[in-house]
């Protein structure tokens, strides 16, 4: 197995932060996607939405100043920026489903070559299913960015021809950002926009089940 670390999680998050235009309304998924907030370049104004009812999510509070009733979708304490607003869940998901949120960054178990996303269940028989807001986000937000490791911990490809895990949504992913490459989902398949300097095309393809084309 090829042992390539590639970009750090912060470096991946930074690439996403650069690709999100100034003035965007953005929803960040739980976990890795949360790194994007801290990596927004100076001078860019991005409004972060959290689906539990806050537009204008600020950085985490200093220790000791956490408020049990000011949290994000991952149930972690956050702050509200000046100009933030609170709203109920139906309004929050109207923002999502109604196409008002411009970008959403999510993690993934698998992404297919046509942009199908599987990120809510590994389909294990005895696991308790839990879905949260993932299906609403991919149904309503026009630009879905995925941040993830290129392969699983056991070396299995996560970018596949067809997802084997239950889908979150069909043909919803716009761009995949991994530790090894940045890959756009296009009408003619997956197109590599950027590749890590320690990677060559052949190795990247070997770590990817779906076939890749390369923008030269």
């Amino acid at each position, binding site marked *: 197995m090829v042992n390539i670390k590639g970009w750090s999680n912060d470096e991946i998050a930074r690439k996403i932060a650069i690709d999100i235009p100034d003035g965007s309304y953005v929803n960040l998924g739980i976990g890795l996607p949360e790194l994007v907030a801290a990596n927004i370049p100076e001078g860019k104004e991005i409004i972060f939405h*959290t*689906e*539990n*009812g*806050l537009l204008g999510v600020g950085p985490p509070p200093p220790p000791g100043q956490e*408020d*049990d*009733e*000011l*949290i994000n979708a991952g*149930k972690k304490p956050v702050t*509200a920026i000046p100009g933030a607003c*609170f*709203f*109920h*869940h*139906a309004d*929050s*998901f109207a923002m*999502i*489903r109604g196409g008002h949120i411009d970008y959403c960054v999510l993690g993934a178990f698998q992404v297919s070559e046509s942009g*199908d996303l599987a990120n809510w269940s590994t389909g294990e028989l*005895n696991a*308790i*299913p*839990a*879905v*949260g*807001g*993932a*299906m*609403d986000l991919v*149904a*309503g937000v026009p630009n879905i960015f995925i941040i993830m490791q290129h392969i699983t911990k056991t070396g299995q490809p996560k970018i596949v021809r067809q997802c084997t895990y*239950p*889908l*979150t*949504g*069909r043909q919803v992913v716009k761009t995949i950002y991994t530790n090894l490459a940045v890959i756009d989902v296009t009408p003619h398949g997956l197109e590599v926009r950027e590749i890590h300097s320690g990677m060559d095309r052949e190795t990247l393809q070997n770590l990817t089940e779906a076939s890749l084309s390369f923008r030269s």
Partner: protein
Amino acid sequence: MINKVVVTAAEAVADIFDGAKIMIGGFGEAGSPIELIHALIDQGAKNLTVISNNTGNGHVGLAALIENLQVKKMICSFPRTAQSVVFPELYAKGMIELELVPQGTLAERIRAGGAGIPAFYTPTTIGTPLAEGKEIRHIDGKSYVLEYALKADFALIKCKTADRYGNLLYNKTARNFGPIMCMAAKTSIVQTSSLVEPGEIDPENVVTPGIFVKRVVKISNPLSENQLLRENRRYPW
């Protein structure tokens, strides 16, 4: 005279009956009406269907209600979180039913229930296992799934400020499901940290209009679920 204020949580939940459908506000810790839930545990109604985003944490609040075997079915979007131990155990033993609903669909089903809309079409779940067996409609070249409204006999809600008409203000992200659950339940029961005279809440700022609220009970210093979890508390104490 209209006065929706009742004195104790016990009095507020006294008429909740066996088999009732109950919406319980809160997203994780934020907005969970712990005192009302504990009063319902003391009251003892059984075979309840509970509609709530999560299934509670540790052994207090909603988790304690489930642990006390009062809940026959949960309708929620995210039944397992880091600190939920009770629901997973009962679910594994087949002792509790689960209807899994995406969070936004859950919110809209509740909103629709309160707004007199029996069902609606949504793009959420199209192409996924959660759309299986549901009616699909094609509108303007896109596919949508039919979802039915949710209503309830009771709602248990936490807010920050209320008056005797039932006008409500919430606190930050603790608002979450409160406003729509108050609309969708026949009898919405609200615990508030502060009770003010009519007119003290600026009419421009009222979040839940009093018409959606049946009972208000003042709980001045509500328990913090996080604090109870840190202390490893269990209800009944």
